[in-house]
């Protein structure tokens, strides 16, 4: 079997994040519950309640064990099924509202799935500007396309500097992550002559090697025009 390719589709803008208010969380939890078994839905209710309690008060000072909601965060795959686990984990993060240190620990100690959930939750968590950036940068250094895609959401669009953001765009093209994963792509690409140069050079390098130029490249290139 050939390596599983990722087929870029017609790009469309990445969705804007929900605002993370309590009402929004309740609505999302209700939607997720619909997709779960009765057992999974009960688990989710219990886990969210536990996470909300963790947000309400700091854990007992240096308490012995891992906070209960973090154990739920780890177990979401077997409790909700792989498919729904990411949504469940993002909701748990939004409910528990971990600070930057706890969040970084959850990422560092996380499986691939847990790291993706942390990255997706970043724009919805109470962080000082840029506090989540080291996690985005870490994910962008990997070659796991699922991590790369999770890293280039609205948080990256808001906080990556021009150089890092251009490299993120190029990395998506390079690793075949569809560029619609890039939040606010049209807005950030507009009038970016340096990004346009990098894209043209990349296309030239591919052509020189007799290889196909990624299908989304022309689309991004068009977005770099001043009047795009």
């Amino acid at each position, binding site marked *: *079997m*050939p390596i*599983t390719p990722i087929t870029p589709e017609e790009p469309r803008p990445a969705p804007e994040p929900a605002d993370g208010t309590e009402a929004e969380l309740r609505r999302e939890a209700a939607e997720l519950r619909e997709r779960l078994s009765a057992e999974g839905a009960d688990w989710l209710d219990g886990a969210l309640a536990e996470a909300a309690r963790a947000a309400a008060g700091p854990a007992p000072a240096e308490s012995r064990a*891992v906070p209960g909601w973090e154990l739920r965060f780890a177990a*979401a795959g077997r409790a909700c099924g*792989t498919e729904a*686990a990411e949504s469940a984990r993002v909701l748990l993060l939004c409910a528990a509202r971990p600070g930057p240190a706890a969040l970084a620990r959850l990422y560092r100690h996380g499986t691939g799935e847990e790291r993706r959930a942390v990255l997706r939750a970043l724009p919805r968590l109470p962080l000082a500007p840029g506090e989540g950036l080291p996690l985005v940068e870490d994910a962008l250094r990997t070659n796991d396309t699922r991590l790369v895609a999770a890293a280039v959401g609205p948080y990256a669009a808001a906080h990556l500097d021009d150089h890092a953001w251009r490299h993120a765009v190029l990395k998506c093209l390079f690793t075949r*992550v569809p560029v619609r994963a890039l939040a606010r792509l049209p807005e950030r690409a507009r009038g970016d002559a340096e990004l346009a140069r990098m894209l043209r050079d990349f296309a030239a390098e591919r052509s020189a090697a007799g290889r196909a130029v990624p299908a989304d490249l022309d689309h991004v290139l068009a977005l770099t025009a001043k009047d795009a």
Partner: protein
Amino acid sequence: MRIFDPHIHMTSRTTDDYEAMYAAGVRALVEPAFWLGQPRTSPESFFDYFDALLGWEPFRAAQYGIAHHCTIALNPKEANDPRCLPVLDALPRYLVKDHVVAVGEIGYDAMTPAEDTALAAQLELAAEHGLPALVHTPHRDKLTGLRRTLDVVAESKLPTERVLIDHLNETTVKEARESGSWLGFSVYPDTKMDEHRMVALLREYGPERVLVNSAADWGKSDPLKTRKVGEAMLAAGFGEDEVHRVLWENPVAFYGLSGRLDLEVPGTEALHEGNSLLRGGE
């Protein structure tokens, strides 16, 4: 022939191996944490390794249509180095993860007191976390090692029915079988078992609770040995149902004891709940 390799160290293997394994019928595997050939000198090296078993390696496997799970433990060889012992304290945070389907591989190397302690402690961790355990038998002084292993298992809180004793051979299979444990056989090019001896043991003892693995790693080994055993079984007159039992159902049943086995190959799709992805098919 659908194959589950219940013991293979993919960290040490290439993408060519993944491709050949898929072509041979491998759709699921378990990668036990073990020694890397070069001794580690600090717990942090283990943590990076464990993180790879829960991050990068499952991604690599999924690209080739293979479901990847792992077992986590401090292996017996490195349990003898005091610099590595703090790994034991950090194990609980790994043992709660999805896709960790057992504690392992644990067991004996040189049968030292440090290995006694690490084995007993990790059997307790398995019991506490609702996980089965993958316990290998030592390469040297194997029968004595098996007996000592079975004694430690019997004294632990973990029921023997939740233990897979691995690297068994003609000299150890009988006592291991009588203990009620699951029975693992590693099939190698030169050492351990070979496929024809494996078939002979299956004739003698039957397929019940028997798992066959390649244990392929950084040494001379062959990630397609599971398939070769399946073919040798068929050539020797075993039915396809018996091959399926040994190469698929038994590993699914054993690691399924964890409640965490997920045989759906995750897509390597870049986008959440996306589209644009092949699920292990051509």
